[in-house]
């Protein structure tokens, strides 16, 4: 494995060019319409150079910095899920042979080499969670598996967490977390730490043979003890600056023991059941299937699209909706994310990215909801 190296910010351009030459589609954070989204990167200039975000419950603003930092924005609404498990996926097609007889045609497996550049540590954790759900279950998901096998992950550690970030509470950041098995974390092929103190530079550490090869292929100098110390200081400062905190102690039993807590009614009076939180969540995996027939009636397509437990038709027994109230739907989402996910997949479904807080149109903050339930825990004494 290549030893850690240091490059100038412009050196990332050589890496992007190298990856594109090798046939990778390089996808990473870029500014569009006043937001950091995920899109194709052609060079360093496509990154959010000199931008910083200000995020809070229901708000997101980009602001100019007085430096040329590349990775001073935290996560935007997009994440790697959009590419690994796209919002709409074609499953298969039934082709009519006449007289109510048909045969089935499957599309070829997705074949695209994607290199994600600037993947945040919380997103590595989210990919790890999705691996458990979509690869380790009864059957590996074909679309996800095909994308996942070919993906290259170049992480960017966080030196400037947003006001809605709480990865430190979830044990998923702000630095790249070693996969010790306690939380499922996707391995980064290469991890970037942007160092702004003194000379603006990027510390690169390889996490796989492929990452090692890439590091060897670009001009760099060897990392020094000062570089590593600067990284430690940067991550410690980021942990201090974390905008939010979630107390995860006993959170499974806390929530499952408080299914009748009045707070569910209170939050339901604010929640619009708009599904935004589930659409921006990097681990939400629920899907629906749509059937569409072409105008001739000769081809019937089955397509899968992201779904949300906030819709009234999401869950039903026979013709009857199971969760008719917003209270029940919010409770389903939060208890699944933080509690029953652990029963199902032996990991929390929350990685602390804070997207659901930022993109909630009424600013509902799950850390606040859990704290409110904890403050008036309705469980009888268990001792």
């Amino acid at each position, binding site marked *: 494995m290549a030893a850690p190296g240091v490059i100038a910010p412009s050196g990332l351009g050589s890496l992007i060019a190298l990856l594109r030459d090798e046939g990778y589609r390089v996808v990473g954070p870029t500014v569009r319409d006043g937001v950091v989204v995920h899109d194709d990167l052609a060079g360093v200039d496509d990154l959010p150079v000199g931008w910083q975000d200000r995020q809070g419950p229901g708000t997101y603003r980009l602001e100019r910095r007085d430096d040329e930092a590349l990775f001073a924005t935290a996560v935007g609404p997009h994440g790697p899920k959009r590419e690994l498990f796209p919002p709409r996926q074609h499953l298969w097609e039934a082709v009519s042979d006449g007289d109510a007889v048909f045969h089935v045609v499957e599309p070829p497996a997705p074949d695209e080499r994607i290199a994600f550049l600037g993947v945040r540590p919380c997103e590595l954790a989210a990919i790890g969670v999705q691996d458990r759900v979509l690869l380790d279950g*009864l059957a590996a998901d074909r679309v996800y598996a095909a994308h996942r096998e070919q993906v290259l992950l170049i992480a960017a550690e966080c030196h400037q967490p947003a006001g809605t970030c709480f990865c430190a509470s979830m044990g998923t950041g702000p630095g790249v977390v070693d996969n010790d098995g306690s939380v499922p974390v996707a391995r980064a092929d290469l991890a970037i730490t942007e160092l702004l103190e003194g000379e603006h530079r990027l510390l690169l550490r390889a996490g796989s043979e492929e990452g090692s090869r890439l590091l060897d292929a670009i001009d760099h100098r060897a990392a020094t003890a000062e570089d590593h110390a600067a990284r430690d200081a940067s991550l410690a400062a980021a942990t201090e600056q974390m905008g939010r905190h979630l107390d995860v102690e006993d959170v499974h039993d806390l929530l499952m023991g408080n299914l009748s807590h009045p707070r569910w009614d209170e939050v339901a009076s604010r929640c619009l059941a708009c599904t935004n939180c589930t659409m921006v969540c990097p681990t939400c995996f629920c899907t629906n299937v749509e059937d569409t027939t072409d105008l001739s009636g000769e081809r*019937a397509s089955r397509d899968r699209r992201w779904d949300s437990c906030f819709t009234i038709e999401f869950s039903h027994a026979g013709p009857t909706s199971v969760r008719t109230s917003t209270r029940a739907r919010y409770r*389903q989402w939060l208890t699944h994310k933080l509690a029953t996910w652990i029963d*199902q997949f032996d990991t929390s479904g929350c990685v602390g990215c804070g997207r659901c807080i930022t993109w909630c149109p009424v600013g509902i903050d799950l850390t606040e909801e859990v704290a409110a339930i904890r403050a008036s825990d309705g469980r009888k004494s268990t001792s």
Partner: protein
Amino acid sequence: MTIAPDLPLRDPLTARPYVVSTIRQQTHDIVTLDVRPAEAPIAFAPGQFDMVYVYGVGEAAISISSDPATPELLSHTIRAIGWVTRALNDLQPGATIGIRGPYGRGWPLDDAEGRDLVIVAGGIGLAPVRPAIMAALAQRDRFNRIALLVGARSPRDLVFRDDLDRWATNPAIDVHVTVDSAVRGWGGRVGVVTKLIPRVPFDPDGATVLTCGPEAMMWHTADALVKRGVDPNHLYVTLERNMRCALGTCGHCQLGPVFVCRDGPVFAWPEVSGLLEEREL
């Protein structure tokens, strides 16, 4: 890629073609479709279900209602409720449907070995237990008594009437049928199925019970059985929720920590009674 008998399927979400051979009208809104695979038949266990696809309309989760000894002729018994089930009710013989499965955890017949086997079915709930009845009768000496308690809203809502008539004269199984409200010409019992529970001869201490019907009926059945002395750990129910994948990844069929498709649809009563008790979980 065209699916042919000698090609393995790559995607667990892709249906295999089956041909509808016969259609049996069970009630005014319930049919039983007998289908034959265009490919090699796939073995199933009593209580398992399939995802059944209708061209251009979609898929629905449907229990298999036929004899597990003959997987080359699969039956699904379907009430017309939604788009897919209505389209399935309108099919003609010779039509192709898509099927993938079987899925889920079936009835625990092994649990009933050496014990009394009691089966309680309400309405279309007879369909998912029918394979268990057939399997139990085929291995009759594994069990002590076998009792079947069937309830329906009215005589015209009874499904598998031919089977009920045949089993009624079979000494291997003790059949009791009741309807909530009778019509002229009905000579049988009247009353809800739970009323039968105190009367039917079986040993509550040594009974394994399989129950299938509407959720409210299963609650009342469980109450009556526990009152009679049946151990809830030997009481099994099957649950119904909408499903899109049947693999535990679409999220729709969750009941608290449980995926009904993957962890069920058959559950021991203590596994789910607390979850069902919680409203809108």
